[in-house]
């Protein structure tokens, strides 16, 4: 039987997102030209949460977009039946903007590489930063996150599951398989 343990409960997720929002504002010294881009699926909800907290701190509604990286994956020739393609929604020009890519878990870095490739097809932002709720280690590419909610050292056979109320009914981060590396 697969064991699982709660890394962050709902309250801890809320506290973590609040801190991440503050770090984003600090990183960019304000919200001028700031845009949050969530990676489908749970990155989109996390970007919405970050935007809500930033609005409560700064009084500014930061624009948000959604990025689906499925068509930019580098392993489509090797995976099984095609993954479902989600929607990319960037309703404004990103040239000169300061983008924060938001995702739930940072692992190998391949999703972020695909996201950077996709963004390059939309324009040339002034700067791109990465904010993730969990950095589980195990990178296969030279990619790092600028804002991290929780750092974990997770063995390759284990999984980090992020739950968000909008899709899963509650907020939590769980470690499935248990083995920390």
């Amino acid at each position, binding site marked *: 039987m697969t064991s699982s343990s709660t890394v962050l409960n709902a309250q801890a997720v809320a506290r973590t997102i609040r801190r991440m929002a503050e770090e984003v504002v600090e990183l960019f010294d304000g919200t001028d030209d700031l845009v949050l881009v969530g990676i489908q699926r749970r990155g989109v909800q996390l970007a919405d949460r970050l935007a809500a907290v930033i609005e409560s701190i700064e009084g500014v509604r930061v624009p948000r977009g959604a990025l689906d990286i499925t*068509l930019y994956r580098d392993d489509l020739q090797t995976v099984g039946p*095609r993954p479902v393609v989600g929607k990319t929604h960037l309703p404004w020009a990103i040239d000169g903007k300061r983008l924060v890519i938001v995702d739930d878990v940072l692992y190998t870095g391949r999703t972020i590489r695909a996201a950077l490739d996709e963004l390059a097809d939309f324009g040339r932002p002034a700067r791109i930063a990465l904010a993730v709720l969990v950095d589980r280690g195990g990178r296969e590419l030279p990619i790092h996150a600028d804002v991290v909610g929780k750092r974990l050292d997770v063995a390759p056979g284990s999984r980090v599951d992020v739950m968000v109320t909008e899709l899963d009914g509650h907020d939590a981060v769980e470690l499935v398989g248990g083995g920390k590396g």
Partner: protein
Amino acid sequence: MSAAPIGKDLLGLEHLSADQIRLILDTAEPFKEISLRAIKKVPTLRGMTIVNLFFEASTRTRISFEFAEKRLSADTVNVASSGSSVSKGETLVDTARNLEAMKIDMVVMRHGASGAAKFLADRIRSNVINAGDGTHEHPTQGLLDILTLRDRWGSLEGRRVCICGDVLHSRVARSNIWGLRKLGAEVAVCGPRSLLPNAIDELGVTVFGRIEEAIEWAEALNILRLQLERMQAGYIPSLREYNRVFGVTRERLERSPRDLVIMHPGPMNRGVEIDSDVADGPHSVILDQVTNGVAVRMAVLYLLAGGRPEVAEAAKG
């Protein structure tokens, strides 16, 4: 063999399940957005080679496939029968084997013989997409027609669609009938008896002999091209007579009790099966069909290219 969720090939809609058809339509939705981007290209099929093998002349279907292939970054080669070794007597199998020996991944084929796509698909490892075989099927046209109606209505369940015109020679009609009925729509056909196949009602469709009846019954008309090149055989008395009896005109549409959706797979014979003010009118979704065609073909290419176990096995090593 590919583990693609719609099988190795797309030969028609007759043998696809409703879920497989919905999967293609759902996959097409996000592909629409790519055609609106400044850079209309994603790297998904980079490194794959697709041959567009057109044994019959076709402009819009071939261009639509070519756009879809290029927007997915595949390498494409167009082969037309005239001037190729086919015109020198080479068999279809020899052509296919030669293409496959050049390590192609997919073939998109239009052929004048019904069943030609299956014949090819049974003999080569590459994925085969039927771009129209004789009077049998034209599955991607059927899918794009269904997507256009689903965009308009949200669901096909219980909706009434009438296919009007030269059903006898139409591959579009069969793909539409099978696909629409699987998704819960009611389907009718309307045309002169000489242009309706025998036993068409065995496909589960209502048959109307008068266009006025079809207009009163239907919520959408899919108006087929009168295949003028076949009209020497005396299927109808004259084009003028056809337009007078079966032409979809504004006057006739005004007698409809509802706002009919007007479709046509093109190319249109204006003033024959459809009048210009109908083709260009507010109820026409003809250009939406063309736009959706690229998205549907991108979806089919994407789904067929998925999951190649032999590549996965090699990658493990």
